[in-house]
């Protein structure tokens, strides 16, 4: 997943809950997903992605 997609999905979840449209049974599920998305984004920002490093270290 791309960072942009994660943010978009997160925005969707937040507005859904803010709009009061989500039923209570699903809030737990959404909360879990939101937490995972936030973690994903924070990792991207602050943790070294070894895979990217490896890709960039290779020359054509």
């Amino acid at each position: 997943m791309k960072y942009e997609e994660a943010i978009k999905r997160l925005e969707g979840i937040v507005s859904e809950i803010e709009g009061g449209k989500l039923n209570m049974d699903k809030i737990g599920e959404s909360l879990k997903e939101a937490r995972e998305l936030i973690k994903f984004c924070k990792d991207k920002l602050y943790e070294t992605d070894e895979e990217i490093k490896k890709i960039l270290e290779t020359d054509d």
Partner: protein
Amino acid sequence: METITLQELNGRVKSTLQFEMPDAYWVQAEISGISPSGQGHCYLELVQKDTTGRTFLAKAKANVWRNTWLKLKPYFEAETGESLKVGMKVLLQVTVTFHEVYGYSLVVWDIDPTYTMGDMARRRKEILDQLAKDGVIGLNRELEIPMLPQRIAVISSATAAGYGDFCNQLASNVYGFRFYVKLFQAAMQGDDVERSVIAALDAVAARMDDFDVVVMIRGGGAVSELSCFDSYNLAYNIANFPLPVITGIGHERDDTVADVVAHTKVKTPTAAAEFIINLVFDTAQVLEVLARRMGDAVTGRMNAETVRLERLAQKLPSLFAVLKVRNEQMLENIWNRSVNGVRNLLTVKNHKLELLEKSIAAADPALILKRGFSLTRCNGHVVNRASDLKPGDRLTTVLADGIVESEIIG
């Protein structure tokens, strides 16, 4: 017929020139050759071309003597940011000389840098006009920088101080953001800039999925030599590049053509790094705000649900009371209806019993006997027909008040 020597002839030409053209002239020309000498002089080749740029209309050698060159060179470079080079248009103050051996040449006394700058600006404008006409000038600027521009292709020379500054600035960002930098080497000054930068761009383009942005940087110097970035071909490649290009080629003056077509132009490599860090900072802020909104939204929703539950709980007793009264009424109704039903049923049954009683009473034999009827038996059987009897039979007749025995005589 007078004959003279070549030296005499050249001597006459020399003195004629000195006599006829003693003044200094401001001359417009293009530099077609430049060679500094070991003694600190500078020898120039000057030309004038026709409008096609292919045919020479005039040509002359020009010498800048050491004393002049020592002042003129730094002055020109400070004003224009460029050093004198081939292809450059210059306005020079010259005097005309003639040497018996070396022939016709000019001596340069002064230079007007504004003429050169004006010419460079005109050339930049021509290139920009052409890029606009070709419809490419705004292409790179229209690209969107990804939310998280972490993977950076740097086009620079490894030895340039600018590259080190850029990497250090990124690595030491106070927020702790991660960046991935890959260097694509290119000459950042001199005649090879156009070719090598385009080659580096091609190398990045070949693996563009690995990168978010391209950064073109070099450290500043006393002479920035920016005119090599005023190239149509280079600008065309930048404008058409599929990733956003950020330039930080270190200068304070007018933007080069490369800067104009780039997505974003900053002054220095350090500023380029800052620019990217700020973009990521904004992105991190978006995430923070979303995370906070998420927390608030969930808390808000939970509070609302709690209040709703509490209200319901408060309402329950009174709801029960209403329900109780309603049920009791219903039960009473059912009871009443049942009692009435049974009562009605009993009345109907009673009536039927009375009728039955009456008909039973009407059939009582004693009453019949009282009305004057009698019951005749013969040998214990009730006599219904006279033909059943014969003379000599004994009859027992029951009357209302007693029994009569009799014998049939006929």
